[in-house]
């Protein structure tokens, strides 16, 4: 057993038992971040705060929500929206945050791709991040079921149908997932469970993992420069803060994060109060009706690009393409064959690849919402095929990339 002395203060008492000073050093005051970063490096903090907003608003919604096909719709649209004090506020925060969190995730992802923050020891950061993305997608989808409106029902129908896996005809699996032949009470209850217990636990565990993966390779910087963190932190601690290439997490990095967070929250609450319709689709204000498909059905905007990869092809190839799109991002660190860790604009062909990928994703997103008719289908098919080609070409174009700095 360790040796304990009579504590001189509460701080000392805790310190002897929990080593709070060391923990604070490791996690905050001597957790070193490169100085050469821009506001895009604050997206992680914004995501954490948005997750917090989702969690808190979700707790309040949970107190009045009823996971029952007969009661769910009115518990949300009547009880929460018009009876519960500030119920509307929690719902707006929850709905808008669920949508905005994906915008920030995409910015966060593309920042990583642009600066090559998934390479040379940072692979696990990328992989854990992509696992978070997938889990968050499940969280968003299961949450979308809960108001039990027309979009909830039909999205539930269509997405669970995917698990029949086309020509494999695994209809039994689909029924097993639903607990019924169609989405019904069992379905709503199990998705409620997924949304409020299992997936949030998984998300929280993955967030911890994601933070942990940063610890050893450290955060990347704007130039992809390899920093000697030991030397630079010595410089900082000896008082030469101006010339050191690193800063403390607390409060050097944090203060910058919080500024970006402030701007984000202004934007966020503007949406909550004045522009929430984009996150609350009108169709979902019609109660679920299993005998009437809405004229237009489409997923929330953040799933549109994968939806558009599924949609324009015949069923089986469509499912294959969809499956490809779901998993391909996770392999990015291994598909990029170049040793360079540098911003895309210094990497020749990869620069073009990056912007094409971004444009393709935006195009797919837009086409994903348009009615599947005429030219929209044609262009959709072309763009979806192009998306696949882009990924297939990545190993080739990066293989021929010139090493930077003659290394």
């Amino acid at each position, binding site marked *: 057993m360790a040796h304990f002395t009579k504590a001189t203060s509460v701080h000392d008492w805790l310190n002897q038992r929990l080593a709070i000073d060391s923990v604070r050093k490791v996690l905050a005051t001597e957790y070193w971040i490169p100085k050469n970063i821009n506001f895009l490096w604050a997206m992680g903090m914004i995501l954490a705060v948005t997750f917090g907003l989702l969690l808190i608003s979700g707790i309040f919604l949970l107190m009045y929500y009823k996971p029952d096909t007969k009661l769910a719709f009115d518990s949300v649209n009547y009880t929460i929206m018009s009876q519960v004090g500030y*119920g509307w506020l929690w719902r707006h925060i929850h709905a808008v945050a669920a949508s905005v969190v994906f915008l920030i995730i995409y910015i966060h992802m593309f920042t990583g791709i642009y600066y090559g923050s998934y390479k040379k020891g940072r692979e696990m950061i990328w992989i854990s991040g992509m696992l978070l993305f997938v889990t968050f997608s499940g969280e968003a989808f299961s949450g979308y079921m809960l108001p039990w409106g027309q979009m909830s029902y039909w999205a539930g129908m269509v997405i669970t149908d995917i698990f029949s896996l086309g020509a494999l005809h695994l209809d039994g699996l689909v029924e097993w997932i639903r607990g019924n032949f169609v989405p019904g009470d069992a379905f709503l209850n199990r998705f409620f469970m997924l949304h409020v217990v299992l997936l949030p636990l998984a998300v929280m565990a993955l967030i911890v993992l994601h933070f942990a993966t940063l610890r050893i390779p450290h955060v990347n910087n704007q130039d992809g420069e390899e920093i000697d963190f030991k030397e630079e932190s010595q410089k900082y601690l000896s008082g030469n803060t101006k010339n050191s290439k690193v800063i403390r997490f607390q409060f050097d990095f944090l203060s910058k994060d919080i500024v970006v967070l402030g701007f984000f929250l202004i934007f966020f609450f503007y949406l909550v109060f004045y522009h929430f319709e984009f996150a609350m689709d009108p169709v979902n204000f019609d109660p679920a009706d299993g005998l009437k498909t809405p004229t237009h059905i489409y997923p929330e905007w953040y799933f549109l690009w994968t939806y558009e990869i599924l949609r324009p092809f015949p069923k089986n190839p469509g499912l294959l393409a969809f499956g490809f799109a779901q998993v391909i991002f996770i392999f990015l660190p291994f598909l990029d064959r170049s040793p360079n860790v540098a911003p895309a604009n210094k990497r020749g062909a990869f620069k073009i690849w990056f912007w094409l990928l971004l444009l393709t994703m935006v195009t797919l997103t837009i086409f994903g919402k348009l009615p599947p008719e005429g030219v929209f289908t044609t262009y959709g098919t072309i763009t979806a095929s192009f998306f696949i080609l882009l990924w297939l070409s990545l190993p080739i174009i990066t293989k021929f990339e010139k090493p930077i700095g003659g290394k």
Partner: protein
Amino acid sequence: MAIKKERRDFLGMALGGFTALGGIAALGAAKRTWDPLPSVMAAGYSTIDLSAAKPNVLNVEKWRGKPIFILKKSPDMKKDPREVIVGDNRYLICIGLCTHLGCIPSYFPKEHKFKCACHGGQFDASGRVLKSPPPIPLVIPPFKIEGEKVVIGEAGEEYKKLKADGLTV
């Protein structure tokens, strides 16, 4: 250097304090969310017709989910300032929950007594404690007399007087 550091601390504290203010406001909103719903509060009235009541027979009504005891007194039952006079008749009107821990006492017409099965408390026909543990008499809810009817949940003159006289909490 020292001056600079002070300014920094001040700004950090100002930001922290301001954020805490926002947090308190958010707690206020959270408190409101926990309040009973308007539909619960609106259900706070119940009108009871006394004309059909029979002497020494306990009538039970419901108000805010709680049982309300209404007992029309027979002439042989002793008078008490707690009783409510409607026309020529005397009534006991009270919430039918034992003031000890909230069980519902049963009425024994022959003895003119309420007995609580949970912990043995007893009340007389005017709701006064005959046997502890109940600390206070059966509680009289706010009521208002309207002819032969009584509205539970609204404080009328008679109720205000009972309350002012300290005959109920």
